[in-house]
């Protein structure tokens, strides 16, 4: 448990998200004070990956519908008008979760906590709430670009 503590989860997730947005979207993400975290209103999506093994948990990336469209258009090199279907948006959000999850999984494995990563899933809708139980470590980080917000939430526990 002490070794898992040594992974600065918050900083790692911030770095990982920033890297994904920078490399794939040429966008910067700024961390916003967590006391400012408010629920995302309107249509939103959540990309999730889980991991299981010596460390288990999940990463959920919550993003508003409009921001999701913006990053989809950027990643696919088109305008938001040219996005043909929700499938494209879901694929981008799923792939983003996969990259952040993959990065955390690699870090855990290299730190002596081998685990396997699930395939990403995407949930969409106007109103949903996600709860995870029995976690030991939890981070919720609000990040923004140009006043558009994304919330990354990580739940984790180490196997005894």
């Amino acid at each position, binding site marked *: 448990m002490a070794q898992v503590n040594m992974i600065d989860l918050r900083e790692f997730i911030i770095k990982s998200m920033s890297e994904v947005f920078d*490399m794939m979207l040429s966008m910067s993400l700024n961390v916003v004070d967590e006391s400012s975290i408010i629920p995302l209103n309107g249509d939103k999506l959540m990309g999730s990956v889980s991991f299981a093994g010596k460390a288990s948990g999940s990463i959920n990336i919550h993003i508003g519908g409009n921001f999701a469209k913006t990053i989809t258009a950027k990643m696919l090199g088109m305008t938001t008008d040219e996005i043909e279907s929700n499938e*494209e948006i879901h694929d981008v959000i799923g792939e983003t979760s996969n990259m952040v*999850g993959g990065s955390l999984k690699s870090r855990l494995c290299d730190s002596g906590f081998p685990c396997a*990563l699930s395939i990403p899933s995407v949930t969409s809708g106007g109103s949903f709430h996600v709860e995870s139980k029995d976690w030991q470590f939890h981070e919720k980080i609000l990040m923004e670009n140009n006043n558009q917000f994304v919330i990354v939430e990580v739940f984790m526990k180490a196997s005894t």
Partner: protein
Amino acid sequence: MTLKVLTVDDSKTIRMIVKKAFKDYDCELTEAENGLEGLEVARQEKPGLIVLDITMPVMNGIEMLGQLKADPELKKIPVIMLTAESGKDNVMQIVKMGVTDYIVKPFKGEQLIERAVKIVSLQLLESKTVEDDHAGRYLKKEGDVRHLVFPDKVNRQIALEMDGFIPKTIEEMTKNNQKKIIVDLRKTVEINVSMIKLIILLIARFSKAGVKYKIVGTESVKTELKSFQETCDLKIDGSIEDALAGLQ
């Protein structure tokens, strides 16, 4: 010589990023969504380079790589593995299996090209117009017959691209007195409104210019086109040979 590049990834996003990365080079790009499909395409197309994801449904990248290495006709094809996991064990595993190189997601297209130029010969496309670029993607010439090859799915963007170069192509065909074209729908997986509109528009252009055309498609494409009012009367040949015979 045109390099054939096969991208095997269940993520359409990644496949599009790879496509964009290679767009300025003399490459013919094919895609597959999983390892099983990837093997089929590799056997058919014999690509010069494979860009292969690890985590995929049906058959993952590790399994596909194993099968490539076990096939005498495919084992020498260089493979760049894509992975979201940079962990030591993961990297060691794929290197031991004989992957030529690997790249960790997220990545920029330029990084993929940097890896690729170390392995294969990549030729930059000569400075061409955008229409020439699009024509190169969908149009080929065999003898005096043009073949317009539709992709698996036509969206608004692709429809615009394909319609964009057709007037110039028809001009060339008229100038060279080679007014024969086959519209090849054999790769089509999804018939949608964009595709129907495009087919109707193309037929109108060909008819106006006096270009003889034939349409080739699979049985399922024929059946689906029959269900649309705009295309129910179209004659679809089942093979290129039949279409060529019809153009004589």
